């Protein structure tokens, strides 16, 4: 481990900005809203501000992205297909461990199965990731329930932990080591290096007092979702509250559903766009011939929670699909963020006898 004085964070981000498009959490000057955004000025990145409202997944898996153009010339009968220009290398600075785990879920979905998603790979392979340990939780956090925080375990090039006045820098890749060498960072003495584990411990201890908005004791819910022992009334109760906006999927760091749309652009040219989609939409599951295995809204809703918490799905992600960031709670026009659904399932599963 190495030491980076806080005042020198700018050297780190500046060095990254020379080789990468730089992304990080920034605070809006007027509204004070925190978002994860492309920055021109590396000093805008602030590692102390709360978790950004938008998940960093948009950098590798944009909301809408042209992935291909194609054209057909009637006269010559010539058809041409062109992939879109390749993505510029990106550095993601200040990723919280929940969001990093979300990115790893996306990796396993997009790259770790039978087919490799080349567009995603193109974004992903040229990336530098600097994670940021949460030395205290935020009100919406429940990563301790989903085994995804408060500190990153894997997937970063560099990991920073604030130990007061300076960051402990943990390297996670050869690229990370090279940057540390280039910056000439001092090695951390053993006593200081031990502070990372202490910081994590202290952060976990703060959850009861500070992370008050959400709790999601998921293990019972995982069991019930996997075995299917959840009464239909529970899903109806949840489905009635779904406004079918799609937001839970859009804000989720690990949701990977997308739609493909071809649009004519005139003069024989067309483009193919990939865009975020959501399993809450009726049209998402509709098949050719009009069959829809998930027509009713409650059937679509239970798909989402099956995807996030069932064991069979977790095997694909090598972890639960939920990373405990709490975004789906705040963005939901109903009241069915994941923690509430877990509560509804647990309440049902602990019910001893039906009420008279």
């Amino acid at each position, binding site marked *: 481990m190495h030491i980076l004085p806080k005042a020198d964070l700018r050297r780190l981000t500046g060095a990254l900005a020379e080789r990468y498009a730089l992304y990080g959490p920034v605070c809006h000057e007027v509204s004070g809203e925190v978002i994860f955004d492309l920055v021109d000025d590396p000093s805008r990145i602030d590692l102390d501000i709360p978790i950004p409202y938008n998940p960093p997944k948009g950098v590798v898996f944009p*909301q809408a992205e042209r992935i291909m153009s194609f054209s057909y010339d009637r006269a010559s009968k010539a058809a041409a297909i062109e992939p879109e220009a390749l993505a510029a290398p990106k550095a993601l600075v200040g990723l919280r461990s929940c969001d990093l785990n979300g990115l790893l879920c996306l990796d396993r979905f997009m790259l770790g199965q039978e087919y490799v998603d080349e567009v995603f790979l193109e974004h992903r392979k040229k990336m530098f990731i600097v994670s940021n340990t949460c030395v205290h939780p935020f009100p919406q956090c429940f990563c301790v329930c989903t085994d995804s925080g408060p500190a990153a375990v894997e997937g970063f090039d560099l990991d920073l932990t604030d130990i007061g006045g300076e960051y402990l820098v943990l390297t996670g890749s050869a690229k990370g080591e090279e940057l540390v060498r280039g910056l000439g960072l001092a090695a951390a003495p053993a006593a200081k290096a031990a502070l990372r584990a202490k910081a994590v411990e202290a952060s976990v201890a703060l959850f009861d007092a500070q992370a008050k908005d959400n709790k999601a004791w998921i293990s019972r819910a995982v069991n019930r979702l996997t075995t299917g022992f959840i009464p239909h009334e529970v899903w109806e109760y949840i489905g009635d509250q779904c*406004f079918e*906006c799609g937001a839970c999927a859009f*804000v989720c760091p690990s949701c990977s559903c997308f739609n493909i749309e071809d649009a004519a652009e005139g003069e024989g040219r067309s483009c193919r766009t990939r865009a975020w989609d959501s399993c809450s*939409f009726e049209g998402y599951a*509709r098949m050719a011939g009009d069959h829809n295995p998930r027509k009713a809204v409650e059937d679509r809703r239970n798909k989402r929670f099956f995807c996030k918490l069932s064991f069979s799905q977790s095997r694909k992600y090598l972890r639960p699909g939920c990373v405990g960031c709490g975004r789906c709670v705040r*963005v939901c026009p109903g009241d069915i963020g994941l923690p509430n659904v877990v509560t509804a399932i647990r309440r049902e599963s602990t019910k001893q006898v039906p009420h008279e």
Partner: protein
Amino acid sequence: MIYKTGICNFCGTGCGHLMKVGDGAVKGVFASPDHPVGAGRLCVRGWHIHELLTTSERITRARVRKDGALRDVPLDEALALAADRLAAFPPEAVAFRASPRASNEDNYLLGKLARAVFGTNNIDLASDAGQGHTVGVLLESGGLPAALASVADLREAGFILALGIDITRQNPILGSELHKAARRGARLVTLSGRRTQIAKLSGTHLQNRPGSMRIVLAAMAKVLLEEGLVDRASTGERTVGFDGFARALDGLDMGRVAGLTGLDLEAVRETARALAGSEAAVAVFASGISGLDRETIAMAHNLFLLAGKAGRKGSGLLAATGICNIAGSWDMGATPRFLPGYVKAGDAAAADRFGKLWSARLNGKPGRTVEELLTSSPPTLKALLVAEHDEGLVRHPEALAALDLVVYVGAYDNPFARFAHIVLPAATYAEADGTYTNTERRIQLNRKKVEPGPDILPAWRIWTALAAKRGVIWPYKTSSDVMKEIAAAVPAYSAVTYEELEKGFGLQWPCDERRPKGCPHPGELPGRLSFAAVPDRFTAPAPTGDHPFLLTAGTDNTFWHTNVIMKKTHIPRREYNALLLLYPQGLVEISAEDAARIGARDKRPVRVVSASGSMRVAAKVSTDVRPGTAYVPYFIGDMITGFLDAHGSLLEGGEESVVPVRIEKV
């Protein structure tokens, strides 16, 4: 920074969003976490507004009809031609239709163009029937002609009454507030003929017979009187007209309420008591194309006034505007009845004041709506200019085709343009600065995000250019200059500036010298409120032997008022298609009991027959309508519009309009 703050341009809720911009184009959108209305939420429409903004179905060039076809011409040539040809007709023969999605600046200047340059008061707005009724009742009552309750009040209210509308579909984020209020323990009551989502989320659903809402509200008012639950101040010196209202209620025989409304009288009584017993209460209803009729709004107003829930902090009626700037467009005078600021159009003193402000002699003759002009006999309208219009007027294709001149000004290509002789391209809301006034009087500034194409101007610049072509030079350099003039013209906007708007999330009018930061709780404003005049006869549409069903119409989530623009998106269009593909001929929703009785099956065709028309659609067998009630979503316009047009009242009168029909198996 690629995420830029802005305001959603679909419904009147006015949620904040962050628009993703890159390479000079819109790339996406995200909810704005700290916006006071949206508070981090958007609906399915709001989450896909970038799809609309990036559609290739844009109008990018000025076009003029030559030899039957629209042909590209230089913008200046089209502007000159439009101005000259509009001026060639007498003022009474010219009309203007404003867009409820346009900014305050756009619509203020369109009104000025119509009145000060072309000398006519013939200007109106699309899709705003319900807003006219709401404004009328509220002006009559002496309060502000706009919502007395704010969205934040929903977070405090102890009692919320949702009237008719499925607000989870029309204004989903307002619907979210209602749901969250119920979750925190507020009493949420839905009064609607159909079991909508908001009805399912309500502690109480009073599923009344369609067309009887006014009677239910009157019965609640009568319960307050009978049981001594009336707010003392409401019947005393703070109000006017109590005696008249009480006399009107004498005409209601409580013994007939259950029969007329289909409701259990005790449930109505209990709801009235809950309203009276609450500390603060809000009534929410649609104000737009699917709004309520005047009498129902007047009764809701009177009920709330009687219960002491009008003119009090945190209480009152919240007319949910269905399109982003319906409210602002009325504030700006995009109506034949009012100049900007709800000043009567025919009023001599007003004409004098605005004549001075606009350096013009104004026409003292009140105008007429485009609808009235198109349907008048003999026809008097010769020329029509329409801004960003999507559907309503296409109901009169013959009248439109007979006009000497139709000018269409818009950003998106649509079926209306086929009637146009001249088409002028306009910027989208993301390509121009402008302010929009939401359903709770919140004036919000939306900054330009991307440059429009070379020939594309913001609408306010087009109106300025048309005035210039008529030799009237307006001095505005920016839309902020237009707002300065609005501040001078409209007292409730007098302290509004772009500088102040930019400091936060908008200002709620009245925003003037005394309240430079706006006024979230106008219910506290001093002044006496009046009971609105209501008829003392209480009848409801009743089924007959020939026509045993009461048919109503309504909107839906993904197929929204201006369906033409929703069809230019990808995901909302797909969601609409998911329903349309199941019911390609359109649908009528009926109960399982009725379906069994007439032998109809889900997705199989039936014929809906009224006294003046019929249509063939599929039956949708549902638990959401009661026996004897039928519902058509008029969003499947292509198939159903023809039938509904023959029943103009169904569209004009809003949600409470009813057509008696019979339904036959085919």
